[in-house]
């Protein structure tokens, strides 16, 4: 019998990196960053890699303590995403549905896909099901599954994961996340969120090309 095309280590490595990026972006957007998260962000292996791709945090960012920085970034997170007048919606249905409402058709569609693969929303998750951070987290979990399937030679599952990812990105992410990032870049007063929005935008653009 003919052998199915083998994925190489490159494919596994790529999947691991994608999973890492999606997890990173999920933490950035799900909630205000905790002091612990900021501490991790400032680790050399994080910052050096980010610097290598053009991210240059100013001295103020580097020299401010995590607890203080956490408070400052939380204020900006709330100004940008939670309260009027800026209030950039983090929910897909507001960007994608015709009537631009919370918990619209898009929300149902996203919830259905997420739950249909055995995932559930945590009891303490108080956001809606189509939060941008949830979308990144869902992609992280799908790519993780793909990674483990590739590592064990389960090419069928890996292909199925890739199909899920492609469908989910096309239906629920490629069509609004970049616009969301542009809006954040325009509205934010924080270099951190401007940089994060830029990284997100660049990554989604990269994914769009790779997926196609």
């Amino acid at each position: 019998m003919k052998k199915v095309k083998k994925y190489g280590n490159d494919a596994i490595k790529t999947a691991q990196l994608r999973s890492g990026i999606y997890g990173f972006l999920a933490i950035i957007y799900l909630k205000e960053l905790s002091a612990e998260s900021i501490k991790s962000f400032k680790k050399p292996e994080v910052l050096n890699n980010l610097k290598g791709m053009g991210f240059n945090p100013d001295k103020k960012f580097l020299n401010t303590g995590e607890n203080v920085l956490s408070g400052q970034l939380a204020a900006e997170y709330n100004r940008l995403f939670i309260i009027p007048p800026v209030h950039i919606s983090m929910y897909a249905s507001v960007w994608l549905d015709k009537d631009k409402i919370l918990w619209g058709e898009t929300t149902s569609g996203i919830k259905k896909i997420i739950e249909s693969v055995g995932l559930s929303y945590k009891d303490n998750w108080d956001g809606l099901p189509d939060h941008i951070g949830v979308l990144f987290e869902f992609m992280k979990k799908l790519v993780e599954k793909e990674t483990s399937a590739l590592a064990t030679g389960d090419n069928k599952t890996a292909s199925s994961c890739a199909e899920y990812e492609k469908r989910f990105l096309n239906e629920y992410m490629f069509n609004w996340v970049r616009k969301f990032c542009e809006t954040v870049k325009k509205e934010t007063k924080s270099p951190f969120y401007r940089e994060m929005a830029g990284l997100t935008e660049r990554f989604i653009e990269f994914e769009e090309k790779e997926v196609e």
Partner: protein
Amino acid sequence: MAKLNRRSFVKLGAAGIAFLAGIGRADKLFALDDEVKLGLGGKDYSPITQDKRKSIPSTCWQCPSRDALTCYTEGERLVKIEGNVESNRNRGKICSKGQSGVNQVYNPDRLLYPLKRIGKRGDGQYKRITWDEALNELTAALKKLKDAGTPEKFMLHHGRVDGSDEKIINNFLTGYGTGTVGNNTSTGESGKWTAQELTWGKYYDVNDTENTNMILNFGSNFFEDHTSHIQLAQRTVEAMSRGVKLYTFDVRLSNTAARSTEWIPVKPGTDGAIALAMCNVILDNNLQDDGFIKTWTNVTLEQLKKHMSQYTPKWAEQISGVPANKIKELAIAFAKAKPGTIVSYRGAVAHYNGVQNERAIKTLDAICGNIDVKGGTNHAVMPEWKFPEINGRVKQLDILDGFKGTAAFPTHNVNNQVLKMIKSGKAGRPAIYMTYLYNPAYVNGECAENIEILKDEKLIPYLVAVDFAMTETAVLADLILPDVTYLERWSLEDTMSYAMIPEFSLRQPIIKPLGEARQFQDVTIELSKRLGINLGYDSTLDFIKQSCAMTKVSFEYLKEHGIYADPSAKPLYKGYAKQANYGGETVIYDAGTGVYWDWKKSDAKTAEEAAASGYTDTKNAYKGYKGQKIGGLVYRGFAPDRVNKSGKFEIYSGLLKARNFEPMPSYMPIPEHKKMKDKELVLTTYKVNVQATPEIQNCKWLSEIYHDNPAWINPVTAGDLGIKTGQKIKIKSGVDEILTTAKVTNGVVPGIVAVSQYVGHWAYGEFASGKKSTVFVADVDSNTKWWKETGVHPNWVVPNSPDPIAGQQRSMDTVVTVTKA
């Protein structure tokens, strides 16, 4: 801003991984729990209220595939149907027909109340009566026949009915005493099944395309329609995505042919010639599987080579139009594929020579060693239900198998001849002719004659139709009993599994039956009570629960999951090579065939009588088959079904020889095609996915997709006839004529006209026939229906003509003229 490239992607990824690792318990920051498990499904939400929908698993009935379903309700309303992802058969996928089941339930044209004719038969005048009135009338008619000692004059003719649905009906009929029970198999594929019974035993084959290396396809449009449509199509698509090649031989560029590696156009009814020539090439090049031929078939390699030597590729080219070099090339590639598999269906089988074509195709698979192996062509694996059974002697009118000499082995009856038999009266006539989910006025050939017979009260004194829709037959009935749709029904199903692991499936009501529609099985149980027949169960549900207990399959599990397959079961291949248990006091050995058989299960009265007449010549000896002796051992072998073949793969059929047919797989020219005159064409029929069965044209979603079926004609042929696309044309055969429009296309071979089946209804309802109901409320979409066409039904011009071996309806052989209308 610089775009991300591979280098910066790696950096970002490394940063992300390091960031997550540095958080410690990052999990607590996320919103989602659990791990991804693909293929779960079963959840859906209302796009309007956003409420979670209730999901109920069940089993489809829109076509013979009977895929596993997940149905969703909001309140008490069915709103959506999907594939059940737990099924090892359709694996979460269904086709558009399955999704349109919603239309069947809520179609305003469906039957909801018992109706009694009040005008002349066929005038369409009915009055609504109560179930009690209907059953009183029917019970009285049945009792009269029973009391007169003529229960066989009650004929039930059913359509696509399997599993518990069929068993409950048969128990009632056996209890009543009639064996005059017809089916619909010869309309579709009885030639294929009988050929298999004569060759390898029990019918139904599985093409294991999931694991194959090459696929040949003779006349099957399986990407659109097949007994196992979704199972086969999805596995083939997956195979092709890993580079497996699919070659389709067909007179028409079907959607399957178009998506094949190559479409190889053939002349109608010549598939067998190609398969035989391929055998010739393989044997000539010594590429055959010597071990299989020697051990498991009943011919020697020398016999086989000698027989096949007459069927050269050059000869086949002249017959079929397929270039000899192409036949050689594909034959050699197929023999080397190891394993390959051959799909075949009506394009090869619904002909005068269909049985021999199928035998040639199975022989081609056999000599390549593809039988019952992973990636090959395999006996179907099906669940084996144990059902409560009523035994008893029945009497039968001899009208099920056609006129004497019609078919040598009508192992699935010859249903297309039943009305002709009734018309002739030579073998008697039923006093009560009851149809159940069977619409002979429409599905048989020669529609005008069907209507004439069904309308004639002298030929059929009492016509009862049981259906969920006002079919072309129901409009002629004296009594109409409204059946439930399959989405309001309890059934146990026994469909084959392409995973090669048996899967039990349940059909359960998604909603309560609408109006006064009642499941016919419950009606037969009620009739049994009224007639004093003791069945041992009180309802269909009771029967199903008893069957589950007898089979040791949990009813509660089935209710929750819809399907059950033993999680520890492994795919079953090479079942024939397992050793048989052939012990027993009444088991004897037949030296002529090498078969051990239990004569008690045959019609022989004594062991002496059985030994004297031998296995082959004792009626129903196959029922006692135990095993086949090969060398010093006894194997399960290719166990027989319905005919007394041995346990070998019978390339040579002594049974055919005894009935004066060529015993080796051979090419039988089609007599009518040999006598064709200038300008005459062969009418070929085909099915499209969304109208693949006779019961679905009134599904509005499907009819919106496909509602017109112009006749396909090759440009060369059309040029000879002076016909252009869009022109009105008349297709005329020896029995009738139809009017349609022409579609001139290179998608058919010259010399034929191709018309799709199963549109062109003249009853059923608004979306099927274009006739709005004057009684019921119009469908909400009536006002937005943008098309007027309803298509043309080709069966008006197709004769009810059976093949001489199986009695298969020859839907592909009709000789016609085509002229401008």
